[in-house]
């Protein structure tokens, strides 16, 4: 799908799994480089979705980052050790208030 032409320099955690990444690149790009295209499940039908635009417009790359839901993965910069996972459906308010 995609191949990196530049070295990685850190590790992030996606769904409990370590992935190589480069500090400062977007989380969405780091996931794509690792061959991951499913980022979320839609609130309407539960269908799998991944990024469309990578520029903050489509909201199809929503993920959970460090416990915060509905983050646009294309606008989240990678930091070493960043923990992220699939956004399941709509944002749940109970978890967010905790």
């Amino acid at each position, binding site marked *: *799908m*995609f*191949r*990196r*032409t*530049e070295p990685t320099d850190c590790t992030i955690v996606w769904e409990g799994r370590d992935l190589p990444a*480069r500090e*400062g*690149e*977007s989380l969405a*790009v*780091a996931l*794509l*480089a690792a061959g991951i*295209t*499913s*980022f979320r499940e*839609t609130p*309407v*039908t539960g*269908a*799998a*979705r*991944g*990024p*469309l*635009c*990578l*520029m*903050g*417009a*489509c*909201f*199809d790359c*929503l993920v959970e980052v460090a416990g915060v839901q*509905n983050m646009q993965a*294309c*606008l989240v*910069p990678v930091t070493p050790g960043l923990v992220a996972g699939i956004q399941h459906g709509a944002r749940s308010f109970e978890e967010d208030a905790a």
Partner: protein
Amino acid sequence: MSVADEWTAGREAVAPVAETVDLLVLGAGPAGMAAATEARAHGMRVLVLDENGAPGGQVHRAVEARLAKGAVSDGQDKDGAKLAAAFRASGAQYRPGATLWAVEPGGKVFWSESGAARSIQAERLILAAGATERPLPIPGWTLPGVMSVGAAQIALKTAGLVPEGNVWLAGQGPLLWLYAVQALAKGGKIAGIIDLSPPGGFSRARPHLLRALKAPEYLLRGLVWQQRVKRATRVIQARELRAEGEGQLARMLVDGVAHPADLLLLHDGVVPNTQVTRAIAGLTHGWDPVQRCWRPALDLWGNTAVAGVMVAGDSGGIGGARAAALSGRIAALEAARALGRITTDERDGRAGPLRLLRDRQLAPRPFLDAMFPPLPEAAIPDETILCRCEEVTAGRVRQAVGLGCLGANQTKAFTRAGMGPCQGRICGPAVHGVIAAARGVPGGEVDPFRTRFPTKPLTLGELAALAG
């Protein structure tokens, strides 16, 4: 501890901003960077808000990082590096990672950064929000593995990701060819290009050729791109495209013929980003029948129908990066005049040569517009999802038209199309086009989605920071 303190406690501290500013610029692409730099040269206090982490916009995205790596190669990158350096040195206050979400009458502007909302009072506004890709809805385009060509270009420019494996490009428009050239130059591999543009492009464009030759570099560049790509990969002329797979793109059907695919990149040209301008009361827009898109009504300087609010660059009409930078400078000169920093004569004297240069950059546009018309929405099959957020198909929108829906805003009530988190950013042009085609009227007679502030989703937590 107040509610606001609780919400904002532990969030990253954000440098404070002044209460007022002479000029607020939205966007740090070519138009925004040039406008801010020019305005600073006339002593204005300038604040630039930009959603990205570094200046450049989409066209010059990550140009500073690539410059530092010695990876600035083409003329476009050199333009961007020059603009960014001048912008950095200008003394404009620059807030990356800042998402504007409201403009109040009188010039109060609201945005969010690092999870907290901010506001400032601006004397003048230059909105330079750039362009977005026109959506190309095909059956199966919501499958993971289907993305836009612009997205792949961002992955290339920011992180050096190149395509490899069963990667296909499909649609029409200059960016599709440009990305192919850039990806191949970086060692990428493309399985093929599905050219969906209607035949006869050159004969449609021929009447505009003479004018286009005022800036021949555009046409020469385009020819070189197409030749390079055609040498390196196959190009299939087709009319119908479908993406298929179980929860993931696996193959595509090109006029009924199956090809394995693990990445499909779609493109159908670009349209002005009018999400913010359409939300400002009284700011009128007009329909562009050639590019089939809405654009704000502007005078020669970039003034809109609302006093103090100006537009520069592609968000006022697609003209490309060089025209955008020139229109940014022209708008800043007018802003400087309006605020009494320069006289009308000084404005005219300085802007004259810039306007001539802009005219030259815009000369090839009618040719390019005729060569690359947007694909017809009437041909979108009924089962195709138009609104990706609410998962509304073209068939349901057509059904709503059958029930009496005249415009995009009515289809919201009937179908929820355009009511998801993207607020119609992606599906807007497609929903609008499908309605116009179903009604059999020109696009200008169909209301577009009305946008409202906040123009980006906003959490109560972010909002509470305003009370702190």
